[in-house]
């Protein structure tokens, strides 16, 4: 069961939306602000707690389709749903969108599509269940039966049984006999006690909507009536099933051996990539099919459709596919030459609709170029993917080549990524803290030898001399020999005070003591130096997470070398992950900003800046450009963009 669906224009006007249940927070705006505008559109689903949000861009019409849903097991049909809704909606509005477009009545059509998709999803699921059931070893099956018996009760009925019931309902629905379905629905509502209120609301909403549609009286009344009845019966049941499946699953698994795979499948906090890793494996448990399993089961689905041609949606889709392949074949054989000719002409005159192929050919070059400029391979790939998604279907402007169009899009994308989305003015934040009588603390972290201490000294110089702040340096690198002495030298040169407790002590508590002392003695800023550590060194990483958790600093600054290439991804991901994993407080802190060192040594190979910002979503706050205290700057976005794509 989905929670909501929204269709809006790139300009920001909602053309149609429907909520089955009131949404918590604002996942749509969150999606726009954290995903669509951040060049992360290469993927197509994102987790925005407590929701999963899946979207589809239609660039030629500047439309965005978004589905919001919870859980993943029973939502095999989301993809198909989005596609069908897209096609139907575009047809509904006559294939044109402009500024005057406003909300349209699309409920009736949508309900039909939703119903079809759900029915089909059930069929697919049944086949999936059957297959995995056969695959499971006998012993496993036995334990499962046992566990089911033990669990007992309505809620823990075997999943496949419930599946069958669902199908029965469908049968009755098709026959137009809603009464039976209703009974089933009631039964189940009584059984499912805790999920009740939500389901009730959903069912209620649906009824209301159906009533409205009926009131509109667009369709033949007999037809609508029949559909309506079927809906009430079938629908009272189907969200129920979705809910129960979700509810029951963990209980079911808890009696199985917990494997790491199981755990990962259960961990919804892991984003798309990790899940992909999982779904290449066998289904974890019966019915535990995550969303991309839908794609895996494509072949089967088509077989089903072939058998079952009276399913309206199925035949629709088949037709569509045929149509597609038909045009392709035609363009390949007859129109090949002509197409190539118009292509090359349009390449000069512009006004050409961009296809996947067009973009790919030129994008490859740009990607290689980006990597040559030291952008991490992963990042270049993702960025290219995202740019492609945003371009497919668009028309090129007049007298611009495909290449120029792609370049422009890519440039804008890079510019957007590098432009900080929040203030990078550390001095202002520190002054503000001072005005409020608080000590402002900054933790510097990073791998070995990137220049943490040197750049800490530069930041110290900046805050002291430019901001007139009273700064204290806390030597929390209690690990590497000579680290404290190095800081002492800096502190002496800068004429600021050093807080140190020698080596071998717990860095977290030294930092804490330093911040307390600073508060008592009227310091404005504490700069905390930490030991450099490789991202794979577990114990040290844990110590770092502890330092952050204990002190909750105002700013967590990751110090990274501009020379770093592919390793940037790994470093930042692991540092961030360690902060997330090992923080035991409710408020999880991650890296707030980046200090890019040795920027003077990389020439135009400034790719590290892009990689780091892309992974963390956080801005480059300073760049270090030399050995002197004054060699600290703010990142000039335009220079970097020019260096990368100029």
């Amino acid at each position, binding site marked *: 069961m989905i929670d909501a669906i*929204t269709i*809006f224009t*790139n*300009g*920001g*006007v*909602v053309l149609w*939306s429907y909520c089955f249940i009131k949404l918590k927070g604002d996942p*749509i*705006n969150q999606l*726009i*602000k954290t995903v*669509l*505008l*951040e060049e992360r559109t290469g993927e197509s689903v994102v987790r925005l707690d407590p929701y999963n949000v899946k979207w589809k861009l239609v660039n030629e019409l*500047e439309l*965005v389709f978004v589905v919001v849903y919870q859980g993943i097991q029973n939502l095999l049909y989301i993809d198909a749903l989005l596609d069908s809704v897209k096609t139907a909606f575009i047809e509904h509005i006559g294939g044109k969108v402009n*500024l*005057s477009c*406003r*909300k349209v009545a699309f409920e009736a059509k949508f309900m039909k599509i939703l119903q079809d998709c759900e029915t089909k999803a059930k069929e697919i699921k049944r086949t999936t269940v059957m297959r995995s059931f056969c695959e499971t070893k006998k012993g496993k099956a036995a334990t499962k039966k046992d566990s089911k018996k033990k669990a007992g009760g309505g809620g823990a009925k075997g999943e496949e049984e419930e599946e069958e019931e669902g199908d029965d309902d469908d049968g009755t629905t098709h026959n137009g006999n809603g009464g039976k379905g209703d009974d089933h629905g009631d039964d189940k509502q009584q059984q499912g006690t805790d999920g009740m209120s939500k389901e009730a609301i959903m069912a209620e909403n649906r009824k209301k909507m159906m009533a409205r549609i009926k009131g509109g009286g667009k369709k033949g009344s007999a037809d609508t009536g029949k559909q309506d009845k079927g809906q009430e019966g079938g629908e009272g049941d189907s969200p129920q099933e979705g809910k129960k499946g979700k509810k029951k699953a963990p209980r079911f698994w808890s009696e199985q051996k917990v494997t790491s795979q199981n755990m990962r499948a259960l961990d919804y906090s892991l984003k798309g990539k990790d899940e992909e890793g999982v779904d290449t494996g066998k289904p974890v448990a019966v019915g535990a099919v995550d969303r991309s399993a839908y794609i895996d089961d494509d072949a089967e689905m088509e077989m089903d459709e072939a058998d079952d041609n009276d399913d309206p949606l199925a035949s629709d889709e088949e037709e569509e596919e045929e149509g597609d392949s038909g045009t392709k074949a035609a363009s390949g054989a007859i129109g090949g030459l002509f197409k190539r000719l118009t292509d090359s002409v349009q390449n000069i005159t512009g006004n050409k609709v961009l296809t996947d192929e067009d973009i790919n050919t030129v994008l490859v070059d740009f990607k290689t170029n980006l990597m040559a400029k030291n952008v991490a391979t992963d990042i270049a790939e993702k960025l290219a993917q995202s740019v492609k998604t945003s371009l497919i279907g668009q028309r090129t402007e007049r007298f611009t080549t495909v290449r120029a169009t792609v370049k422009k899009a890519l440039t*804008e994308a890079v*510019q*957007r*990524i590098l*432009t*900080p*989305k*929040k*203030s990078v*003015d550390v*001095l*202002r934040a520190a*002054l*503000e803290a001072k*005005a409020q009588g608080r000590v402002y603390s900054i933790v510097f972290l990073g791998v070995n030898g990137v220049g943490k201490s040197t750049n800490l000294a530069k930041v110290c110089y*900046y805050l002291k001399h*430019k*901001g007139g702040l009273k700064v204290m340096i806390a030597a929390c690198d209690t690990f590497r020999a000579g680290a404290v002495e190095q800081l002492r030298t800096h502190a002496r040169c800068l004429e600021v005070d050093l807080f140190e407790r020698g080596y071998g002590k717990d860095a977290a508590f030294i930092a804490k003591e330093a911040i307390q002392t600073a508060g008592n003695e009227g310091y404005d800023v504490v700069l905390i130096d930490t030991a450099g550590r490789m991202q794979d060194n577990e114990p040290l990483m844990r110590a770092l997470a502890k330092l952050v958790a204990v002190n909750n600093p105002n700013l967590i600054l990751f110090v990274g070398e501009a020379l770093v290439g592919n390793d940037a991804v790994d470093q930042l991901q692991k540092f961030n992950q360690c902060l997330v994993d090992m923080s035991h407080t409710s408020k999880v802190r991650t890296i707030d900003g980046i200090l890019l060192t040795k920027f003077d040594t990389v020439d135009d190979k400034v790719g590290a800046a892009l990689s780091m910002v892309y992974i963390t979503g956080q801005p480059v706050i*300073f760049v270090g450009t030399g050995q002197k205290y*004054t*060699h*600290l*700057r*703010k990142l000039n*976005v335009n220079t970097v963009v020019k260096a990368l794509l100029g």
Partner: protein
Amino acid sequence: MDVLSDTFTTLAAAVEAAGSQVGVPITAEISLAVVLLAVLCTLLVIVSLARSLRKGTRRLSRGDLLLIAGQCDAGKTALFHYLRSGDFPETVSSLKPNTDIINVLHKDEGDASSSGGGGVGGIEVCDYPGHQRLSHGFFGHLKRARCVVYVIDATDKAALKNVAEHLYEIFTHPATNKLRPPLLLACNKSDVPTARKPDMVKDDIEREIERLRQSRSATLEGQDEADNYLGVDGETFKLDMAPCRVDMCRMSVKKAEVQDVIKFLADNYR
């Protein structure tokens, strides 16, 4: 430099050759003088051309665009559509600017105040999204602006910090200093009881900008201090020290209370 001297010698050689063809004995010195003269002449022409060109750009005045600016969720798109068609559609955060030619002044009191006949129809209006990631394209639009309506969500105190920072950037931008487009700070959502009054918003913004002045005047090495400076040295910042005229008004697009904005437009598109 190498290229220059190279062309120089080849040119000199050419002159020499020409001279010998005509039969006049031309020494190296004379040919050098001729070439120098020619180069000087061209240089003069280029310089004067460049001057006149620059004069042209200096005379360049403000464009005709009405720029609707502001932070995310302030109500820019809402205002845009209100001005365009008088309605209040449901919106989400914009992914791209909305641009259109709009007949604003025909609707309300515009007809009376403007020049009688046809009035001033057809204003090009641009609603530029507030998301920071899109901010790099903002100043391109500002350069074309006749005036700016800066929409503020008066119910969102936390956002005022970002407003101040954005305004600081606008005020210190060369385009603002050259073109001085009038700016209206429209405090939107005044229909909500918790909305702050324009006076309060003004105080908040001035205080935030003052704080920014302190941190920004401390520039990092390699950044031009001059173009970061705002206000009068030694005085706390007030909005009337901004390089362009700044007005405040309250507004509620939802309740169709946008009279002050319309008046502002009428004043600017006379």
